């Protein structure tokens, strides 16, 4: 079977986003979910074949360093699957008007296409394009919350994001200036001679800052609390769960393929540590759930950055585990915050109204903290054992940061759990609390229940998932295989040198 099907990862959702104005109402509502289902199926298929061997596709049949290349290893395939599934679970089924619903669905599809593209793209500038695509769709969705505060927050997000993109573009320009190619495999091939110097590191740093905006990297993550507090919960879930992971994946790929240098790792490690500290501690003081989740996701992504800074496939395995775990948990928590999104004090006694919802929250919180045997524990275990094995003391310090922030995380998450199970708000003296109905709607419960089912399935299957995870990390770490797969004839690179 030809691997040209790879292109459908991007093409199908985009087609489903473009076509609706030409179609009658009944079909256009189904087009998006259908496209996502197909992409999910494709993801499963790709994951199965790529576990054996990665595949690549030269778009337009142009030989690789000239045209754009898609490269799918098992990591990318898994992310393709995750993109489709998570988007499907967070699909906007309802809108204020039919027109706005159309728009939101289109933007969601565009976002899914961009995320899929980020997962599979093997070209630096193409990554930038998909990143911008995800960004613009994200801005649109974030502003779609409809409140004035959402617009201001989105504007600030947009400015920061655009500045980041600018830096990333400068970084790409620098790389092209030095290496004369944009193909990641080609760059990986050339990097030891051309890019492993201060010049290349500077370019990497610029790209790190630029793409870090979406990955909630410390320094460029101030947008997150504002956006997550104002946007619709589903949008926050998409941004925090999905988009951040894809930006992270791209950065990790760049780190592994082109810049496997201690300085680059050091930057990632330090920024990750700072992100973890600031995020988790800020969440400790958060007064409302949405911003608490925002800060907590900043902290979690900081952990992922720390993990990716560990050299070798062990670090990649840890980073992937953390990222995938966060991908399962954070969207579900945001879904629960759709109704429970207000101040913490309003939640008093909400467990009595929605015991199932409260139980789900407790489950996700426990997994986030890393209580065995839930998947979060294995992610944390991989991270810590990876950190402890490094000779550099900075890694040990990072381990300490992880431990301390986990305690802080447990305290604020359990504060919410305590609040949920505490005295009923209806009994309290403040009359304005009585008006709020904290019962979760069935759709929310179904959505986060699906995530919970996935989480529990992963927990049960953990012993059987370690081998694929290790395999994925190995594949991702194998830059020689990447180069060999994308540029099969060494003659190609010889000819262009």
């Amino acid at each position: 079977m030809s691997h040209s099907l790879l292109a459908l990862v991007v093409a199908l959702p985009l087609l489903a986003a473009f076509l609706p104005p030409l179609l009658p109402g009944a079909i256009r509502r189904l087009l998006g979910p259908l496209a996502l289902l197909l992409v999910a199926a494709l993801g499963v298929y790709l994951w199965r074949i790529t576990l054996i061997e990665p595949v690549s596709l030269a778009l337009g049949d142009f030989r690789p360093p000239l045209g754009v290349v898609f490269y799918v290893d098992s990591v990318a395939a898994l992310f393709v699957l995750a993109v489709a599934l998570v988007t499907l679970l967070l699909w906007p089924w309802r809108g204020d008007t039919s027109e706005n619903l159309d728009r939101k669905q289109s933007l969601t599809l565009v976002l899914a296409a961009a995320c899929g593209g980020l997962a599979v793209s093997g070209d630096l500038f193409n990554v930038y394009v998909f990143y911008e695509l995800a960004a613009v769709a994200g801005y649109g969705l974030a502003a779609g919350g409809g409140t004035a505060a959402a617009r201001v927050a989105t504007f600030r997000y947009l400015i920061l994001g655009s500045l980041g993109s600018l830096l990333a573009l400068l970084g790409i320009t620098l790389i092209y200036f030095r290496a004369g190619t944009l193909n990641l495999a080609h760059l990986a091939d050339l990097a030891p001679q051309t890019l492993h110097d201060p010049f290349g590191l500077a370019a990497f740093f610029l790209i790190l800052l630029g793409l870090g905006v979406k990955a909630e990297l410390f320094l460029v993550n101030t947008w997150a609390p504002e956006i997550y507090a104002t946007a619709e919960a589903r949008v926050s879930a998409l941004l925090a769960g999905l988009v951040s992971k894809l930006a992270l994946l791209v950065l990790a790929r760049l780190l592994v393929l082109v810049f496997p240098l201690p300085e680059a790792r050091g930057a990632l490690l330090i920024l990750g540590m700072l992100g973890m500290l600031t995020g988790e501690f800020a969440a400790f003081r958060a007064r409302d759930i949405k911003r608490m989740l925002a800060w907590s996701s900043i902290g979690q992504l900081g952990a992922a950055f720390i993990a990716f800074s560990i050299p070798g496939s062990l670090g990649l395995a840890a980073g992937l585990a953390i990222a995938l775990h966060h991908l399962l948990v954070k969207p579900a928590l945001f879904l629960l915050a759709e109704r429970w999104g207000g101040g913490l004090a309003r939640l008093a006694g909400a467990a009595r109204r929605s015991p199932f919802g409260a139980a789900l929250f407790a489950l996700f919180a426990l997994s986030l903290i890393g209580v065995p045997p839930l998947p979060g524990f294995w992610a944390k275990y991989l991270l810590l054992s990876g950190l402890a094995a490094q000779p550099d003391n900075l890694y040990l310090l990072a381990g300490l940061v992880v431990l301390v922030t986990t305690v802080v995380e447990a305290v604020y998450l359990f504060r919410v759990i305590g609040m949920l199970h505490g005295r009923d708000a209806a009994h309290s003296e403040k009359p304005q609390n009585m008006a709020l109905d904290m019962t979760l709607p069935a759709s929310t419960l179904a959505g986060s229940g699906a995530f919970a089912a996935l989480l529990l399935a992963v927990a049960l299957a953990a012993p059987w998932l370690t081998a694929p995870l290790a395999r994925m990390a190995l594949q991702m770490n194998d830059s020689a295989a990447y180069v060999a797969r994308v540029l099969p004839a060494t003659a190609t690179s010889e000819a262009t040198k």
Partner: protein
Amino acid sequence: MSEFALLTLLIGALGLVALGIGGLVLSRNLFRVVLALALAEAGANLLLVLVGFRQSAWGAIAPIIESGRDAASLTPSMVDPIPQALVLTAIVIGVGVQALALSLAIRAYGAYGTLDMNALRARMETDIDSAAGTQPARCQHAPAGGRPLPPISAGARRADTPGTPA
């Protein structure tokens, strides 16, 4: 093109980037922020084109094969076509982002009646807090002793609610 001219172009492009970023940081007016962004992007795009420039014996040639000329003789002195294509893409991306930014600015102005970034941010924080039902966090500029800020009057808050035309 001489070395000097190239350097001038480089300095010009970098100057645009610096001006843009500086303006982005210093401007408080949303519209100026968008303009500064456009400026910085223009600078970055210029840099990208400049990177693809090639000095050759017969000067630089645009990567277009004029009809009747032999392609093989032209291509060794043509400038790099890839950055030009990239710039085309980058420009269009910039246009889209700027249009979106402007529309957001219009809406923000419509809701809050100001284009000042600081004022908008303060109003946004207030809105977020009142929507969540939490006490607003003390402003970082508040005195260290924690003297409470004067409460926002109910009337002013109502005017901020979304959907009400200003």
